[in-house]
């Protein structure tokens, strides 16, 4: 297939709905569904009926402002979120009023401004289709330019050119480590092997992180497109998406996407009538956090116990079933299609010197606008929390923000003006992680926070290596003693020593980074910890 054929197809899909002028979009992502979006969609659909052929109601993906759900947007066809009339906290009883407003004045009592910083300050690349298209519709995706990057790559670019664009873009792995994606891809491409694999890591397990879930639920075709471009670039014909079973909606939508893409000839044998073939299979995780670690994830796909093995050999050399394997996170793959469409140089123009592009963050905790945001790298934490996040509720003061989940750490108020990128967070003793941000107000006890994350690591340790298995248990015990006010200076010294040993000797990233929340608490809130010791 030639890009022009695809463009024709997209135009045809748009023409089919040319009569429709106005759209009512109901967020049907997991968060809005849990606050009752399904009855709202049913009520709206019922009232709308055929909409005289001019208006229709559709379920879409995540609009971001999860705290205000269920969200409903009324807009002209092809208008994005910023130009729509957005309604918050909608109930089925509001349906008649909303349908009235489609051709009339907005319902002011439900109105949610799209001019507020939460929407205005974002730059959406990964989430560009989220909240606009029906995730179950192949036509919707193609109509907004979907699969054009894949067709462009397959018909007009060599695999080397694809690799060059990805390298030029400066994209770094969005799963946490920030390894340069172009370097990873070209390593796998250069490793000899008749059989290679592409794996999409969707085993998002950090507490308070839900970026990957939202992308899979809102725009699943984009992940398939990214994986196929990767497959073409490295010479792989088989891909696996490893999704945690706790994301049933994401799995369902991904399955639908795979089925529809196959039916349309955009997946499987001879993708888009080219010589390239690519199959994708879904593998479900069984609830182990450690399976987000790449070697454990691959063991799990192979049907073995999900536990890490020593590296090297790295997956690029000997991965799934011993074959060269490329493994990237959901958000990384979601960035690929725009990079191929617009060129690597375009992407490299966004962000900071060493961290390019945008990053999706999940805002959670004590913050007014909990939800999903996408901002350019380098945006300051203060902007994210005070402007986009809308500040701390109940007039309380900000205390710390936790980034990077159980592998990261807390950042105190003194460092709020730092621009967020991989390297700046590292200098603060935390890490980007997958993008969860948990905001804490002045009522939070930092020892409790450290204890919580240590408990998480302790229960999620696979038990293979001694420092992680027994060390996290002992560190949790010491934190528990300190939190109860029964700890001594000797306990604190022992805790610091255990942090050092576990960090230096553990087998995989889970153990090596398990002490991070404790270390960052000791770095920024030492006085608070010491005040809890016996006799202080």
């Amino acid at each position, binding site marked *: 297939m030639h890009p022009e054929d695809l463009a024709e197809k997209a135009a045809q899909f748009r023409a089919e709905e040319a009569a429709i002028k106005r759209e009512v979009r109901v967020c049907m992502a997991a968060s809005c569904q849990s606050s009752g979006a399904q009855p709202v969609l049913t009520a709206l659909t019922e009232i709308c009926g055929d909409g005289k052929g001019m208006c229709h109601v559709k379920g879409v993906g995540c609009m971001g402002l999860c705290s205000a759900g269920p969200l409903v947007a009324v807009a002209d066809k092809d208008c994005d979120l910023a130009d729509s009339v957005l309604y918050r906290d909608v109930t089925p009883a509001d349906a008649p009023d909303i349908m009235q407003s489609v051709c009339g004045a907005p319902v002011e009592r439900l109105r949610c401004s799209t001019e507020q910083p939460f929407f205005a300050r974002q730059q959406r690349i990964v989430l560009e289709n989220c909240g606009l298209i029906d995730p179950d519709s192949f036509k919707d995706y193609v109509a907004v330019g979907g699969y054009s990057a894949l067709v462009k790559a397959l018909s007009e670019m060599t695999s080397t050119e694809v690799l060059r664009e990805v390298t030029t873009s400066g994209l770094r792995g969005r799963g946490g480590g920030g390894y340069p994606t172009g370097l990873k891809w070209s390593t796998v491409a250069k490793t000899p092997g008749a059989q290679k694999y592409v794996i999409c890591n969707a085993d998002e397990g950090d507490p308070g992180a839900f970026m990957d879930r939202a992308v899979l639920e809102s725009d699943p075709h984009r992940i398939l497109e990214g994986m196929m471009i990767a497959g073409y670039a490295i010479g792989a014909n088989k891909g696996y998406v490893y999704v945690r079973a706790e994301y049933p909606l994401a799995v369902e939508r991904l399955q639908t996407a795979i089925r529809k893409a196959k039916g349309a000839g955009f997946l499987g044998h001879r993708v888009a009538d080219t010589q390239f073939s690519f199959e994708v299979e879904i593998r479900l995780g069984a609830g182990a956090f450690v399976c987000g670690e790449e070697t454990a994830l691959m063991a799990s796909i192979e049907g073995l116990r999900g536990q890490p093995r020593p590296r090297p*050999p790295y997956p690029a050399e000997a991965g799934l079933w011993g074959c060269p394997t490329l493994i990237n996170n959901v958000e990384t793959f979601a960035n690929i299609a725009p990079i191929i469409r617009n060129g690597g140089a375009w992407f490299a123009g966004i962000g900071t010197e060493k961290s390019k592009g945008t990053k999706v963050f999940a805002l959670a905790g004590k913050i007014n606008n909990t939800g999903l945001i996408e901002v350019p790298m380098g945006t300051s934490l203060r902007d994210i929390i005070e402007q986009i996040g809308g500040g701390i509720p109940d007039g309380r003061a900000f205390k710390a923000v936790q980034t990077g989940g159980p592998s990261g750490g807390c950042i105190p108020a003194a460092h709020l003006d730092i621009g967020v990128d991989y390297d700046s967070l590292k200098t603060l003793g935390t890490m980007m992680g997958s993008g969860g941000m948990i905001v804490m107000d002045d009522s939070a006890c930092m020892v409790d926070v450290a204890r919580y994350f240590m408990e998480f690591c302790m229960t999620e*340790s*696979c038990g293979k*290596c*001694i420092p992680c298995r*027994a060390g996290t*248990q002992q560190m949790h015990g010491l934190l528990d003693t300190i939190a109860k006010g029964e700890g001594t200076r000797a306990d604190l010294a022992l805790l610091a020593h255990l942090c050092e040993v576990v960090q*230096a000797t553990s*087998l995989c990233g889970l153990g090596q980074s398990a002490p991070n929340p404790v270390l960052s608490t000791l770095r920024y809130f030492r006085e608070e910890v010491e005040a809890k010791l016996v006799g202080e």
Partner: protein
Amino acid sequence: MAQPAPLSTVRVVTLTIDDRDFSAREDETIIEVCRENNIPIPSLCHLDGLSIWGGCRLCMVELEGQTRLFAACSTRVTEGMRIQTQSERLRSYRHTILELLFAERHHVCAVCVSNGHCELQWLAQKCGVDHVRVPYRQAAYPVDSSHEMFRIDHNRCILCTRCVRVCDEIEGAHTWDIMGRGTDCRVISDLAQPWGDSTNCTSCGKCVQVCPTGALVKQGTSVGEMVKDQHFLPILARRRHAQ
């Protein structure tokens, strides 16, 4: 089980370990070179003849020019590598890891059938572990005496998985496996059934011989009577590979 991919043309490299020069094949791991040359390096999960595991983390060494530590059992040697196996930092970490092991389950030597013949006990003596700074956990774990010849006492298990590997890789029965997570991990026979009910256990006893502690023992042994013999393993493993 993860085994580094074999290299097609193997070269010989020279390297230094604790400031002494050695030569080695480049497909050898650091621990193999150390064992060959009688350089003591502590380890509880590695055993000549079994696949690489990398779980006990006692064999961590320092490499010149690298800030992080490397496990000697799962790191191949390279030309010009400069290895330190003994340093104050390594000694301190090994000491702590052994303490963590002793505090995890019930390792009471005085009443153990392996007393005096236990690898964990020897290592503790060599590394000077005479006290434990972390609190003893000592949760109660089961003891399975259902097998007519052998017994498994999970209280003395350190989860090194030598038994799992020898059963799978050498005997070919794969009776043993691991269940659970973290400190709740347990070695299980078949699908967590009593050992005596296992239909695929061949009662060969290899698991008992390779077990470094008193977790897997012969029935009817009393304190200090359980002496193990692991000499069969490298010979058997090499014959298998030669075939």
